[in-house]
Structures are given as C-alpha cells and as structure tokens.
C-alpha cells in the first residue's frame, strides 16, 4: 500500500494565519490588508456583501490565487503555493462553490484524481479494487452512502459537496475551506453538511466557511469575520454574535431586521393555472392556481422536482400530461419564446449555465430577453435605446459595476444575479417564476430583491418562488406548496407559514398529515 494520504496529519496542528494580505486584479483592488487566523477545532465564517472579497480570500488561502502582497503562515512557518496541489500537500483544501466535477469518471476515481493508488510491480497499474474500497470507506466514514461506482455526472450538487469533503480527507487535509457550500442545498441537506462539518471540527480540523444565510452562520460558526470592500471589519467569536451588528458591519450602515411580509393572501384574478401537469418520472399530477399579486412558494428537498415543474411550465420541457393556462390562454406545450411573449418569465436557478452569458456585457445580457422590444430599424438595433435600457436596469437594481459595458463575468455572483433578475423584470411580465432568486446573493442585496418582489407583487405581478431557504419562503410568500418526490403534498397559507411547519411539510409523502 503506497498511498500518501494515509498518513495522519500531526495532532493539533492547523493554525493558519494570513497577514496583511492584499490582492489586486489589474487596477482593481479586491482585498486590502486582510489579517486573520484560522484555528484548529473551530469553524471560522466569512461574511460580507457580494463582491466583498470572501471568495478571493479563500482562493488565496487555498493556493488558487497568489496574494499581491502579504504573507501566509501555517503553524508559524511562512508558506507560499504555486498551485492548489501544493496547498493540498500542506493539508489545505478548498471545497469550491460549485465542485469541480469530472462527469465522465466514476465517483471513486474523481475522489482520487491526481493520485490514483497503483499496485506494485511492472507495469504499475491502477489498483481499481483498492481504490473503490478506499473511496467507499472514506465516504462511509462521513456517514455517506454514495455508490462510488456510478459516474460522477449522476451526483446531485449536495452529493458532489459531500464527495469533496471526503476528497479532502483522503488527501490528508486538515484545513478545509467551504465557499458558499449551502447555497444550492435545502435545509435538510444543509443539516447533513453541518453534521459533517461539526464532526470534522470536533476531530480537530480547521474549517473555513462562507455563507450569506444569517441563521446558518449563527448556528454553525465559532468565529465570524466580516469583510467589507476587501477590508476586514471585525472578527468576533461566539460570545460576540449579534445579528443586527453583523448586518450593519457588512453593509456599512444601520440595518433593521425586516419582518414578515404583511400583505395578506391576495384574492386577485387567477393568472397561472396548472392542472394535472406531469413529466415522468420527475413529477406527477401537479396542479395549482397562482393569482394576480400573489407570491406562491414551492418548498421541497433538492431533487424534489421543483425546477422541472417550473421548466415545464416555461416550455423548456414538454409535459406528458396536464394543462397550463396563462390568464385563461392555454400555453401547454408552447416554446419559451411564445410563453415569454404572453407574459410569463422564468429566472433560472443555474445562473452560470442558464441565466446569464458571462462573456457578454451587462447591457447585452439585460437586453438579451427583450431584443424585440428595443427600438430598431430594418432589424438593426438602436444602440442608444439599448444603452438606456441597460443603464435603467443597472440603476434600478443597484448593480455594482464599472460600467454598463463591463463583461458580466467580471461582476461578483450577487451582482450577476441582480443583472439576470433585472433582465427579466425589464420585460414587465404578468407572471414570474423565480427559481432560487437569491442564491449566492448577500444580505443587503437580498433585502433589496425581497422588497422588489413585494413591490412587483403589489403592482399585480403573480410570482412563483422556488426556494430552499426557509427564511425566504417565510418572509415572502402568501402561500406555500410543498413538493415531495414530484407531488404536491401540502399547502400552507398566510399566518401558518412558519419555519417549523414549512420545514416539516416536505419531508414525506404525507405532508403535514403525518
């Protein structure tokens, strides 16, 4: 057996210290003299608005980027990495926000990529049975039952993250950094991840964490650091946690905690009527009515089929059965362009793949959905009109950018999301389906988006929100439908919408009845 990762790291080591770290991209300075220490046996969380520099800091800590100035010290000794692999060898591992998948390889193999165990003798060949065994063992040691023989592309995002944790352990890494691991997870999945994280912590690992979800952060963290505009504002430990104070530090102004939406269940005209919609095997017999001015939530576990329901309504997928009516008109089976024209829009959950075209400019992204509405002559776009449209949205949604013709990929995740949101609202639709509308969006921006959703609802827009964030559903919705394995299992209305009720409702076939 010649596998390096088998060696156990020295006990209690794992003090990881950053001193006066700065990072500039071109003339943009993203980190300004950040100093902090990650300690073994503790979970250290970074908070901050979109673009504050959290991901950049983690990338520097894990060798993906090199600091412009400043120093990293591991157990007192200075370290510098030329590649993430170097960091792995020093025991530092980054679980990226979207795990680096190798879709065509088996789960077992992806776990060992770069250091496949080989058998002795000539020719040295990969020890497949050993690899499988070790992979399975690593996963079980985290309490996971993922079949390591399947192709990695069949893993859900949650499973991918779990595999990443096991990968870190296999590489003998004791300092593990998680960049927004929870944003694609439902609360159930989050709990499971937190279970793993706590176990690692109790075992003496050093953990870094990034999240925009305040409840989670307060729940899991031992230390919290707040970053604002690339500078460290404060680091506090558990005794100093204070929701309001943290919020204010992040945004740099006083923040109030906004209560649950007060508007009661709207009794507007029915705008979107879904009847017996089915798309085997993902969902069956889905039916509901969405009213003018109503915010209807879809709650459920990841994989419950909510995205598929939304995509089917939007015409991306063709249903096997059922009807969808928009303001009385049958739109079942129409293509997205026709549905958009009739006033229904869908803000997809996967921003990078479906929501935005990152290499194109902000304006081009904003106008990509409303090309037909721009002023034009002989099919030629009136560029002034286009610029005006782009600028209006950028201003309205407070997108933080260098200019409206900046490529979208240069923006932070949250700002990208605002652009995508603005792109669709610019169409002034009658019905909007928002799939995880605030995934990866910071608290400040989140509030803005919530306010916006409320305004739009007040103005009569019918909104279907798919969210895996309990707080979000509770805060926004007039009504919540719970989905379990592709079926609606519960409906909760008005004041009944509480975290406890909603959280329980989508965990089994019986909904709230059990």
């Amino acid at each position, binding site marked *: 057996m010649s596998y390096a990762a088998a060696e156990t790291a020295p006990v209690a080591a794992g003090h990881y210290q950053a001193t006066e770290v700065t990072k500039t*991209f*071109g*003339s*943009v300075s993203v980190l300004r003299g950040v100093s902090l220490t990650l300690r073994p046996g503790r979970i250290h969380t970074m908070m901050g608005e979109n673009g504050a520099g959290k991901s950049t800091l983690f990338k520097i800590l894990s060798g993906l980027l090199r600091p412009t100035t400043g120093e990293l010290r591991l157990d007192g000794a200075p370290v510098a990495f*030329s*590649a993430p692999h170097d960091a792995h060898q020093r025991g530092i591992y980054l679980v*990226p*926000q*979207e795990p*680096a*998948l190798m*879709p065509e390889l088996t789960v077992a193999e992806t776990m060992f990529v770069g250091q496949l165990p080989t058998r002795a003798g000539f020719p040295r060949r990969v020890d497949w049975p050993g690899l499988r065994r070790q992979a399975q063992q690593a996963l079980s040691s985290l309490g996971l039952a993922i079949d390591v023989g399947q192709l990695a592309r069949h893993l859900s995002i949650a499973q991918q993250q779990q595999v990443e944790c096991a990968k870190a352990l296999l590489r003998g890494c004791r300092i593990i950094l998680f960049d927004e691991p929870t944003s694609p997870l439902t609360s159930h999945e989050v709990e499971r991840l937190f279970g793993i994280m706590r176990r690692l912590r109790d075992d003496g690992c050093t953990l870094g964490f990034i999240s925009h979800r305040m409840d989670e952060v307060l729940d899991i963290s031992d230390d919290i650091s707040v970053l604002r*505009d690339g500078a460290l504002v404060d680091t506090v430990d558990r005794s100093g946690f204070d929701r309001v104070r943290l919020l204010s530090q992040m945004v740099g102004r006083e923040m109030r905690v906004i209560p649950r939406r007060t508007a009661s269940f709207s009794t507007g005209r029915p705008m979107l009527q879904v009847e017996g919609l089915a798309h085997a095997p993902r969902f069956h017999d889905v039916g509901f009515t969405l009213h003018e001015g109503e915010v209807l939530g879809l709650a459920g576990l990841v994989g419950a089929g909510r995205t598929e329901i939304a995509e089917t309504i939007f015409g*991306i997928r063709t249903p096997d059965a059922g009807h969808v009516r928009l303001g009385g008109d049958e739109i079942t089976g129409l*293509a*997205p*362009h026709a549905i958009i*024209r009739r006033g229904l829009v*869908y803000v997809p959950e996967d*921003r*990078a*793949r*479906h*929501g*935005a*075209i*990152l*290499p*194109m400019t902000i304006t081009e992204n904003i*106008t*990509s*959905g409303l*090309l*037909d509405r*721009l002023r*034009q002559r*002989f*099919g*030629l*776009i009136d560029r002034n009109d286009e*610029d005006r449209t*782009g*600028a209006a949205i*950028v*201003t309205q949604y*407070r*997108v*933080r*950018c*260098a*200019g*409206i*013709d*900046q*490529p979208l*990929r240069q923006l*932070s*995740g949250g700002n*990208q999301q605002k652009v995508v949101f603005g*792109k669709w609202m610019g169409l002034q639709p009658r019905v909007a389906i928002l799939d995880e509308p605030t995934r990866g969006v910071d608290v400040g921006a989140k509030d803005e988006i919530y306010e916006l959703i409320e305004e739009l609802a007040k103005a009569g827009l019918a909104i279907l929100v798919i969210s895996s964030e309990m707080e979000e559903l509770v805060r926004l919705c007039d009504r919540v439908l719970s989905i379990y394995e592709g079926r609606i299992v519960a409906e909760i209305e008005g004041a009944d919408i509480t975290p406890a009720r909603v959280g329980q409702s989508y965990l089994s076939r019986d909904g709230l009845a059990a």
Partner: protein
Amino acid sequence: MADPSNPGRNEVTARRRNAARLPLDGWERSLLVLLVLLVAGLCLSVDGFYPGFAGFLALTENFLPFGLVALGLTTVILTGGIDLSVGATAGLSAIVMAELWSGLHVSIWLAAVVGLLAGGVLGAVNGLIITRLRTEPLIATLATSFIYASIATALAGPSPPAGFPDAFNLIGTGTLIGPIPLQLVLFSVLALLFTLLLQYSTFGRRIVMVGYSSEAARYSGLRIDRIVLSAYVISGVMSAFAGIVLAAYYSAVRPDMGDVLLLSTITIVVLGGVSIFGGEGTIAGVVIAVLLLGFLRQGMLIAGYSDMVTTMLTGAILLGAIAIKNILSGRGTGLAALLTRIRGRRPATTGSAAE
C-alpha cells in the same frame, strides 16, 4: 477588450459603450497594419505584383471566392458550429446551375438563382441534421460533404458543362466602374451587409448569444434551432455563391472545384479573430484576413515560390498570429492560461468556480 477601469465602489455607473464595440477592435487593427505592410512590401519587392492599379485589383479575382465562403462560414462559427461541407456545397450548387443551363436550356441567370437556392437547401439539410438529430456539426457536415460530393459527381457526368455566356462570365472576371473587378464590388457589398447583419442586427445578437451559450439563449426565449438553421442556410447560400463565381471565373464547372475552399477558409476565419468556440469575432477581421492571405498567396506565387511554400507560410502565419494574440492577452502556460480559458469557455462543464 475593455480597459480595466476601476469600479467605482457602491456607485452605479451607466457609462457609454466604449470604442471596443466598434467593428475595428485591437486585433483587427493589428491585422490591418500587417496587411498594409505586406501589400507595400510585395509591391516594392516582387516584380510583377503591381502591374498598375487595374492589374493589382484584378489579383483579387483569384481569391475573393474564398472571402465569400468565409462570410457564410463566419456566421456558422459564431454560433459555435462548423461547416465542413462548404466546398462540396459550392461544387454541387455550381453543377446544378450548369446542368440546368446546358441540359434543360434554362437561362443562365435563372439557373444561377436556382443554384443559390440549391445552396440554401443544402445548408438547410445540414442545419436540420444538426438541430433535429442533434448530430455534432463537425460530423454532420463531414458526412454531408461526402454525400454532396457524390451527387455532384453523378450530376456532372464524365464531361461537365462549360463555356457559359460571356455576360455571365463577367461575374468572375468583369469589371465595374473602371478597373474595379465585379467580384470586388460584390464582395464589398456583401461584407457590408454581413457586418450589419452580424454586428448590428437583432439576428446577429442572437447568433452571438447562441455561440456563447446556447443553453442560456434557450432560457432567454431564443429559438435556437431556427437561428442555427438559418446560420447553416446562410453558409450554404454563400458557398453556392462562391461556386457560381468560380464557375463564371473558369467558365466551367467541376464537381470537386470547391475542395480547395475548405481549409483555407477556416484559416481565414480564424485568423480574422473569430473564436472557433463561437460568440466572438467581427466581419471586419475576416475581411482583412481574406485580403491578407489572398495577397500573400498571390505575391508568393508571383515571386516564384511554389504552391507548397505558400501553404506552409500560411500555416506558420496562422500559428504565429494566434500565438502572439494569446501571449499578448496573457494566456500561455500555467495557471493563468487555464483560468483565462475556463472563464472564457464552457461554463457548462467547468462550472463558474472561477467567477
């Protein structure tokens, strides 16, 4: 690329579009300088390259059909596809025209129009195979190029038609307004049209969106299949156009006469700055690349270098140019290169880990 300006933190700027969006970007400008230098150099050093203004312009007749194909191919490559059947389409369309004229005694002009339509149909077949059967463009057009070539050979028979009316042959060799070759006039008009179409129209914007990310374009309500289909139709029509111009230039047709078009045209399009992955590129760049490689080849031939040396030089220029482009834009070996590439391409598989 836009200059790396400092984002004014917290303040929303709605700055006007900058110069980067004009049709002449940095790459095109470099190519233009190179073109001017090359032509000047050839004029001075190669005896016979500049036999007077008219003769000089007439040189373009020898390579503009490549330009016509390049315009259509650019459209396809912008969508992230490729059309390997341009040569076979050119050949088959020209044969269709010639056979109508000689076999069925249709007027050559009407036959030419039918030839163009035939090109469109052949392009549509490509497009339909790609959009309906979801076959890789590379394989689909490779396969159809074999099929089109067979049909062309069968239609042409052992002695393909030749000796078209002189009025028709003028398309290939005639001049307009003094010494300006008709081909050059046609090419200029079409290049202008394509610039408007691809860079200033909603259609062009849609093409580019599909090229960058067809998934995202679909979620934005674009009719991907239609757009892709029209790109291949455009490519087919332009190939047919090139075939007809070649027919007029030679006053003859041959089933394999388009074969030479393919590799050179891809080279032209890529050298012109069009990203082989789709989304990026301008017609201006392609036009300059047409002239650059065209004059280079003519100059080398006139200077007495063999066909092969010219071909080698073309390959070297392509590699050198793209290498320099990459080095200047900070790509190259190591992590920086990887990151640059990841950010630029395929969010679908690499995720946005590098956001």
